[in-house]
């Protein structure tokens, strides 16, 4: 957006940047549209050579067979529980940690913070096995809680929210201290409203991340009634090239619908908070 604003005065430049933006949007949009339209294609149509976005013949059997073969509401519910719980608790822990780091500093604050940051560089594959073993001992394999439990704190989220909170003028917090405002009230009524854009975008990010997660739930969840919508795609992938791609695309389309709707709603809040935030004043 910044680039745009700066070049707005130079007419030619504006067109150039718009073209770049449109091109970028196309690159990002193409796979999504391909997925969406393929979910209405016959299998042989999908494998037709050449790039063709729209189906030759529109069919809805891909969807009906998905709904016939799978308990879609159940899958959505499981995904929602996992993503919702992960996002909520992660946000809670991150907000509290960030508030503590920024507004209740002590001698060790920065050390603690750097310790958090270091964990951002530990790849998932490294902690996967220890986590799995711990869950086995806790008897939490094949439970939704088992999927959620190891991801209830997130260094990236702490980092991002901390950065946002650091932009809140310290004098606001000092004014609150002089009025004996308890920390939780200060967090709820002063800090959170001011960092809302960062918090909302982080929440969406965490939700979508968790919603799309494939590998970890695959490892933990065994029984059919605990499967998530993302995991269900494997139901249609056959071993010898017999994958029902139309079905997979239909399922994928269903799976992204919810985060997409959520995002469209939240986007309005994000934009309006951006416009009304008066942090600099």
């Amino acid at each position, binding site marked *: 957006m910044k680039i745009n604003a700066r070049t707005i005065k130079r007419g030619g430049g504006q067109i150039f940047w718009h073209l770049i933006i449109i091109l970028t949007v196309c690159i990002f949009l193409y796979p999504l549209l391909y997925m969406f339209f393929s979910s209405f294609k016959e299998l042989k149509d999908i494998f037709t050579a050449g790039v063709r976005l729209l189906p030759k013949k529109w069919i809805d059997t891909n969807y009906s067979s998905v709904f016939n073969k799978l308990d879609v509401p159940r899958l959505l519910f499981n995904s929602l529980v996992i993503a919702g719980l992960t996002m909520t608790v992660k946000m809670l822990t991150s907000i509290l940690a960030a508030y503590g780091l920024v507004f209740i500093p002590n001698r060790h604050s920065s050390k603690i913070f750097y310790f958090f940051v270091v964990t951002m560089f530990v790849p998932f594959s490294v902690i996967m096995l220890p986590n799995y073993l711990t869950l086995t001992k806790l008897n939490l394999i094949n439970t939704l809680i088992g999927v959620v439990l190891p991801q209830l704190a997130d260094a990236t989220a702490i980092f991002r929210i901390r950065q946002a909170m650091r932009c809140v003028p310290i*004098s606001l917090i000092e004014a609150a*201290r*002089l009025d004996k405002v308890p920390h939780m009230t200060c967090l709820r009524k002063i800090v959170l409203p*001011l960092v809302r854009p960062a918090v909302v975008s982080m929440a969406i990010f965490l939700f979508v991340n968790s919603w799309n997660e494939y590998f970890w739930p695959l490892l933990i969840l065994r029984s059919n009634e605990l499967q998530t919508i993302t995991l269900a795609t494997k139901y249609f992938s056959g071993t010898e090239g017999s994958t029902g791609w139309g079905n997979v695309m239909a399922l994928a389309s269903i799976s992204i619908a919810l985060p997409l709707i959520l995002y469209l709603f939240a986007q309005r809040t994000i934009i309006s908070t951006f416009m009304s935030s008066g942090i600099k*004043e």
Partner: protein
Amino acid sequence: MSGENDIVFEHVYKSYDGKNNVIADLNLTIPSGQRMILLGPSGCGKSTILRMIAGLEKISGGDLYMGGKRVNDVDPGDRNVAMVFQNYALYPHMTVKRNIQFGMEIAKVPKAERDKQTDWALDILNLSEYKNRLPRQLSGGQRQRVALCRALVKKAPYFLLDEPLSNLDAQLRTAARAELVRIHEVYQPTFIYVTHDQIEAMTVGQRIVILDKSIIQQQGTPDEIYNQPANVFVAKFIGSPCMNICKANVENGKLIVGDEAAPIPEAWQKIVGDRKVVRFGIRPEHIEFLPDDGDFSIKVTYTENHGNLLCVAFTVGENNLMATLDPFYVLQDNLKLKIKWDKIHFFDDETELNLGYPER
């Protein structure tokens, strides 16, 4: 004499790193119910002192008493202070009314009382019509007044202001200064006001503490500070244009600048003593030129007409001086500087301390 809301610093130290003291051995009494100004250039430690009173900075050593009680370890919320911050610290997402009421909400003041107090404060500062606006919809001066309202409704015995006018333009400042004095009169809290602006200090203050390099240079009434500056720093810091300070030799009861000499009156001779070199100070408005009959020859370097006064820069020997004269004053040739002995200040050349005044 001690009032119930005195603030007393006893040998107070403040250090951030444990090595360098920002404040060293501060001893200061801020009398109850007075408007006390902490004045000094930036970095002199005045804001730190204010923040120590508020409890926002921990005290590294010594004792701080407020209302007779040692408060070193008392939480800011329990010190009963109201504070106006330099950037006003208004909550950007709350309306003016909510900003003012927030503290009372926390203190669980009943709604009717909150509204009454808010209306009272808004009325005093002529802000009633703005109560439903957000801070960003207000001008700088209005925001500053909202911050004052917020502090006012607390009715705290201590009212702290950290450069509250520094973000306002010159015209608004004049109005705001009068407002601050008026607010103090409302319930006469102990008023501690930090500024680097000497005019604010002189007009708002009942007492002024002048700080430089974390050390108190002088404290007293505005009148005392202006007329009897304790040292060269204070003399030059207060007054605009600042006091002229000239180096002069003393020989046989004569003040010598360049090749010219003026006899020192007997009363002053006692004060100057046997010093061979002194500095004398004279305010620009006390300078008098006489044709031929003065004490020292001058050379005018430039003049500026400010409309209400004429500023004349000139040299005497190697000293650069400034005089403020009547705008219709005609600068003739052969003008000489006439020392008005009852308006002069003498300072020691080394310690820069004021040598005192003859009995008048």
